[in-house]
């Protein structure tokens, strides 16, 4: 009885506050967005400090300038008429001009903020070795080309993971103690391995042994003619990496979510709803899923952070032409600008994922909507 009284007692002011709930959500989103933006700025600055640690990158760039200048001078016929000393002086002055042009003569602290701005706007100049497929050297073009495949793969994987996780968890909480339930608990430790690890096994089974699915890549070579066949081909190439993503996390996420569901299904108001004779589905939707969703979304955010980390190797293993594979190629070629910009891109992607989840969180969490509790901690 006490329960009903309190809900009734609360529902009246709640209705009054409803008009401002949109404002609260907006405020919450704004605060979280700003925090995340500051986080990204600090993260990128840290990345720049690490990348330029001890002026290492600067030395490298200065060395490149000198080499370039001396090569240019050596190839120039007119220089033959100059004496050695004059040539040296010319070379030194040219190096000086170019260093100043790139701003390498200013103190590092000043430049680091310029790098920070360039990093944040992804205006990172040109790559040293890598080219985009269209032949551009601009880091921005290279990244732009690779962003779409990564987003496609990761978004698909994350969405499928979320919905399969929630429905599996609900199913398990309904059949608490069944064989499947015990099986999922027993399998939960397997989530300690990252997605690429399962990817190797999937390639071994479905590509090498059975030959049903391709070893890797994103599209058949040569690509099919019509758009429909092309998307089918991409879909076929996506099956294994998405499956690897899901296998690597579905057991532990559905195990922990099932535990949340079970905790919330033992609440008094659920018993009350049962006593009222509501259907199982209605109970699940209104009384179990709703209070659990904020917790689930928070835990999903943590899962996604690990998934993004693993994406680099997942793409490498499946030769998926995304940012992860670009990172790996840049590592092998030691292409500094590209590596730094992938760090920036991943910081953005992570922050964006968390931000999106925060918006959803603010929409489903009554504490944000009604202003009843504090922010999440």
């Amino acid at each position, binding site marked *: 009885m006490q329960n009903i009284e309190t809900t009734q007692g609360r529902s009246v002011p709640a209705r009054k506050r409803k008009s401002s709930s949109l404002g609260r959500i907006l405020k919450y989103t704004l605060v979280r967005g700003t*925090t*995340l933006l*500051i*986080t*990204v700025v*600090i*993260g990128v600055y*840290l*990345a720049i400090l*690490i*990348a330029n*640690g001890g002026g*290492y*990158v600067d030395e490298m760039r200065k060395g490149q300038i000198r080499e370039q200048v001396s090569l240019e001078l050596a190839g120039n016929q007119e220089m033959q008429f100059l004496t050695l000393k004059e040539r040296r002086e010319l070379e030194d002055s040219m190096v000086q001009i170019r260093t100043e042009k790139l701003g390498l003569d200013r103190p590092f602290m000043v430049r680091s903020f310029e790098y920070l701005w360039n990093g944040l706007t992804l205006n990172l100049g040109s790559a040293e070795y890598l080219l985009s497929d269209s032949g551009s050297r601009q880091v921005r073009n290279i990244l732009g080309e690779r962003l779409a495949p990564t987003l496609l793969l990761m978004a698909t994987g994350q969405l499928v993971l979320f919905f399969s996780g929630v429905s599996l968890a609900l199913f398990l909480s309904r059949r*608490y103690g069944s064989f499947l339930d015990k099986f999922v608990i*027993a399998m*939960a*430790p*397997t*989530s*300690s*391995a*990252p997605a*690429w*690890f399962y990817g*190797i*096994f999937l*390639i*071994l089974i479905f*590509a*090498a042994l059975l030959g049903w699915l391709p*070893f890797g890549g994103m599209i058949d070579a040569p690509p099919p003619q019509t758009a429909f066949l092309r998307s089918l081909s991409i879909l076929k190439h996506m099956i294994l990496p998405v499956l690897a993503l899901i296998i690597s996390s579905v057991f532990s996420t559905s195990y922990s979510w099932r*535990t949340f569901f*079970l*905790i919330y299904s033992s609440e008094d108001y659920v018993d009350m709803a049962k006593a009222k004779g509501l259907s199982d589905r209605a109970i699940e939707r209104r009384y179990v899923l709703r209070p659990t969703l904020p917790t689930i979304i928070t835990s999903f955010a*943590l899962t996604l*952070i690990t998934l*993004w*980390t*693993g994406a*680099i*190797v997942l793409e*490498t*293993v499946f030769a998926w032409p995304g940012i992860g594979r670009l*990172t*790996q190629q840049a*590592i*092998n070629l*030691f292409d500094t600008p590209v*590596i*730094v910009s*992938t*760090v920036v891109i*991943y*910081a953005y992607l*992570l*922050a964006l994922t*968390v931000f999106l989840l925060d918006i959803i969180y603010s929409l489903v969490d009554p504490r944000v909507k009604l202003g009843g509790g504090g922010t999440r*901690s």
Partner: protein
Amino acid sequence: MKGLSNVFRQLRTYPSAVAGLTIIVLMVILAIYALVTIPYSEAVQLWRGGDNVWLETPRNARPAWLNYFYKDKMPETIVLRTTDDPSLKTTVDLGGGVSTSDMLLEFDYNYDGFPTELAVFLTAEYDSARPNVTMKWITPDGREIPIADLSVRAQETYRISQDTRLVRRLGGAQPEIGLFADPTNPGKVVKGTYQLVAEGLVFEEGSTVDASLVVYGQLHGLAGTDHRRRDITVALLWGTPVALAFGLVAAVGSSLTTMMLAAAAVWFGGWVDWVIRRINEVVMILPLLPILIMVGLFYSRSIWVILGVVILLGIFGSGILSYRSMFLQVKESGYIEAARAYGAGSGRIIFRYMIPKIVPVLIPGFVTQVPAYVFLEATLSVLGLGDPVLPTWGKLLNDAHTNGALFNGYFYWVLEPASLLIIAGLGFAMLGFALDRIFNPRLRGL
């Protein structure tokens, strides 16, 4: 102590914990075995593999025990050396410093598969006149095939498989196949005793010549070999202590520091708490792997440097928040009040009163973290950022991946390190899950 034995008694009721603990103990034994049998310097040298380390092992050979499952038996490597067995060599003095040394290298070949390569390694001692060696091959059915006529330097490697003239003589067949195949049925091996007769002729007093024949097989050792003829067993063995050390040190290091920070944040409160929480928010969203990649590229690939950075970044994360909420409860308890009353300092209260209270929660926490770090090392290695000198499981996977092991059918090369990784990971994860249930009674009913 009583608490500890109590935990063990409870652990025994969880089969997964027993299995996990068994795996961990076995891994530790394996790690100790590796460290004792192959010292660090030797492991590094073996894995870097100079020119003469892996002369007598085949390339990309599968593990030898696979023969138990094959209907057609595959050959293992056969090595015959005249230096090991002087009876293989008969020396006749012809006078005037000239003498013959006939070497008869004889072996039984009863396999169904062909060897992968054939090579003769010759060594000679002389002052100015090089010894001469003529070699011929005698098959079990009595055919004699002349192979080569060589003038031997101090060290001579004659790779029979790469002799193009011999290929022509064998009618275009690769020597390792042509010398073993049945002439009427070229796909079949003639079984029986093969002989390599090497007739040496030395022209100086005291000059000698020795030969060793290596028939490279298709199988090798416990674990097979890789593309550089290295025995994979070395890396599998040495990967164990590396993985265990990396995982344990990273997990213990980061969870201990996390706990201390959380305790300090709660105890001092105010701006300390605020700063720690803000730093935590930033670090949680930092992309860990790309930063590790940068450190690996620009500073050092040494596993210990990476380990330090991993611990540093691992301090922050979701863990600090949950420890914080626990410490908030601990801070309010009566015995802390009592400690404060008798005048205990902040350090004493944090280390002697607050942290010991939380240790039971810490243990399952770091045990479940170990696999994540073990896999992190493998992840870095797969990206080509593994420790430059140490053989690890991740480096095996990286080699296998870059050499298209799955595409070319060298499954053992991927499966062996992968199964060790998953076994180690599962061991810690299963133990951690069980410990979590013992220390968090709230979960036990569910």
